[in-house]
């Protein structure tokens, strides 16, 4: 099994790239990045491996924080709490995880598994189960693949530890863990249902940590050169420029542990006479221009700061910001009928047939 050292500069890039892949949600990875800087200063190190190098019988721990991104900005998750969610799972199952992986590469959860990995001294698999961020636990390639949805652990820093021993479906897993999470205060460190090496190889979305690092590196290098960072992203990813504009209104409501709402943008440059609205449930789900849907999940809708090229999140987007909206292609696993059942527009309550911006 070949392991690659992850440098702190890689993690700086990962933080920028994961936030872009967060498609508005998942929380800004800045706080996990700060934790990683502190852990690296203290001598901790993390290594990366390919899924292909896992043994079929190896067990892999899937790490994620759950909750509203807004809450994560106030209740900053500690690295030991994340590690505790993993060790609680090991206590419950009797497994010793050969490696850890990310449930969602998008947002802070793209970096958080490294916090647990640093304490537990396990490598990180260069794969995840979303290829982006999504608000609910059944919106994963593991769920599309019909893999076992249990057990789960959820930990709160105040000494609250929950194990969900068994649930019949991923939707039940989401409902039960969501309730626990809301009781905890809409934030919980979780270890998701463990995976075998064979499952990760078959159902994982591969190379996403490396991809997030590459996107982040492109943005950071463009910033340093004073080049256009958005052009730099579109130079390495087959994405599409959708809109440039200015935020004129953001309506938010916090419901059942989610942040839902609508951001409205007035156009600039080529879009001067067009209004864009983007509906969100933690993540940007559907973007409309003048009322007509132009991009929707599972296409990745990325709202970026027009100057820095860095991501703008649904919990921080604000009046007056100048933003550029791009789309990135979705993981192939979500384009099957079963994939669209899990993460297509109807999964978020929109009566729309999925139409990719990349299909025309």
């Amino acid at each position, binding site marked *: 099994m070949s392991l690659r050292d992850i440098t702190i500069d890689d993690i700086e890039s990962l933080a920028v790239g994961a936030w872009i892949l967060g498609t508005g949600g998942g929380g800004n990875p800045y*706080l996990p990045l*700060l*934790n990683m800087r*502190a852990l690296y200063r203290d001598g901790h190190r993390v290594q990366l491996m390919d899924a292909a190098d896992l043994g079929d019988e190896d067990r892999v721990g899937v790490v994620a924080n759950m909750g*509203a991104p*807004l*809450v994560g*900005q*106030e*209740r*900053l*998750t*500690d*690295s*030991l709490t994340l590690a505790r969610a993993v060790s609680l799972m090991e206590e419950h199952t009797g497994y010793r995880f050969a490696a850890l992986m990310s449930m969602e590469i998008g947002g802070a959860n793209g970096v958080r598994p490294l916090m647990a990995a640093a304490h537990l001294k396990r490598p990180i698999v260069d794969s995840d189960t979303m290829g982006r961020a999504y608000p609910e636990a059944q919106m994963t390639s593991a769920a599309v693949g019909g893999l076992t949805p249990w057990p789960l652990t959820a930990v709160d*820093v*105040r000494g609250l530890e929950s194990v969900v021993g068994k649930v019949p479906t991923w939707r039940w897993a989401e409902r039960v863990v969501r309730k626990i999470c809301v009781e905890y*205060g*809409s934030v919980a460190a979780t270890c998701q249902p463990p995976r075998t090496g064979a499952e990760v190889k078959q159902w994982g979305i591969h190379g996403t940590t490396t991809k997030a690092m590459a996107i982040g590196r492109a943005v950071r290098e463009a910033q340093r050169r*004073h080049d256009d960072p958005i052009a730099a992203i579109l130079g390495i990813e087959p994405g599409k420029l959708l809109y440039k504009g200015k935020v004129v209104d953001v*309506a*938010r*409501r*916090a*419901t059942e542990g989610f942040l839902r709402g609508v951001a409205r943008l007035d156009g*600039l*440059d080529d879009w001067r006479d067009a209004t864009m609205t983007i509906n969100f449930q933690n993540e940007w789900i559907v973007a409309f221009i003048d009322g007509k849907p132009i991009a929707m999940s599972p296409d990745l809708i990325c709202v970026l*700061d*027009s*100057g*820095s090229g*860095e991501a*703008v999140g649904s*919990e*921080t987007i*604000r*009046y*007056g*910001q*100048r*933003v550029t909206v791009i789309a990135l292609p979705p993981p192939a696993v979500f384009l099957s009928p079963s994939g669209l059942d899990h993460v297509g527009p109807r999964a978020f309550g929109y009566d729309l047939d999925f139409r990719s911006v990349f299909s025309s």
Partner: protein
Amino acid sequence: MRRIGIDVGGTNTDAVLIEQGKVVRAVKAPTSEDVTSGILDSLQRLGATGLLKSGRIDGVMIGTTHFINAVVQRRHLTKVAALRLGMPASASLPPFCDWPEDLAQLVRGGVWMVEGGHEYDGRLFMPLDEAAVVRAAQEMRSAGLKSVAISSIFSPLDPSHEKRAAELVAGIVPEASITCSSDLGRIGLLERENAGLLNAALADLARDAITAFEQAIGDSGIAAPLFITQNDGTVAEAGQARRLPVYSFASGATNSMRGAAYLSGLSDAMVIDVGGTTTDVGQLRNGFPREANSVVKVGGVRTLFRMPDLLSIGLGGGSHVVLDPLAVGPLSVGYRLLKDGIAFGGSQLTTTDVAVASGVLDLGDRGKVAHLDGESCRKVFAEAARMVEEAIDRMKTEAGDVPLIAVGGGAFLIPDRVPGVSRVIHVEHGDCANAVGAAIAQVSGECDQIFKDMTRLDAIDAARTIANDRAVAAGADRKTLATIDSEDMPLAYLPGNSVRVRVRVVGDVAAG
């Protein structure tokens, strides 16, 4: 309406008198070490013709780079006791965790983290550990710390733990100046806490500086209230600025852009402000500086402040010039220009010397720079023009040509033609644009409260009406009021449709 605007810069203290919308007189004096005498000097020059004796002065508006310079230069900062209410959460990221180490060393007087804070839905995260707050305060007292920054989880939604902790600390350290993070706004514990820590670090400087300003105004015989200009182009009365100096961080840049808009009559344009050491390029939109989108770092510290989006380059009237190989800036003689420049008998070749040699400026002794040939001068101006063009190109967001307003003492370095610029505008009193911007600073009104049983839009309307009325009561002209900030946050834990709305409006000072 008669107002005096003063800009206390690193090099010069500029002052202007504005009467019925016109600049009546503008003067410059060197900034003094003690600040007071520089202001007094400029006020005396301003009143030299007896102008200030007749008629009432409605206000003295001072803009200063004092506070931001203190942080950037790591000077005059107060040691701060950081008290965070939120344990056991967030322990791996304590206060100061993302500060540059040198600044943290200077400011970090001590860190105390105790149990407390709220949840997003208003429940307690943990009960406030009052005994631990009392112990912390006793330790602050023993350590001689008198400036305290208190932060608490979700304090923008429920500030009660911060307020209670402030009471307890004040009971034990009565002379303490205490900053509560909830007074500085937004969701985002680290950034809000950072703003509080910076504010607390400026406590002594703000008190001394504003006292010095008041003394200078008093000594000059002017009986008018003192206002300090803020980052967003509005003014705060002196008492509030003393308590929350972080709000006045970036007012220097804002003032010069607002001044440029006022003097030129343009509200949409690029502005280039050429000082002694640096040149700032920004863009006016509707008469206000375009704001930076991203998280703003002040002296390396991440905050949520809104700041003008500026590009600074090392070019100014005092920039060092080397002829072979040709180099202009970034080093500068700064405030020593009138001593160190060759035209003034010194030995350092500067851009001002080149301008004197080529007859662009009539300053100092032209004979002393007679050795500079026309071709060399032309090359220096061409290099300055290249630097300016590059900076403008980077800051410009429109595809078409836009006007460029050139202000500041070094505006002579700006060429008459710049690619992407429709025309270069030099304005009368442009060298005092920052003082003009201070004099015309606007009045704001703010509403930040919880509305119940209303739709979101009705609640925002109600908040705007209250903010508008407050701005008018504070002297704004109702016709000019505009919303510059609007933020709302649903409060799921309260009965009915409860929403917390924060609206900030600004308007021009009403005439008369």
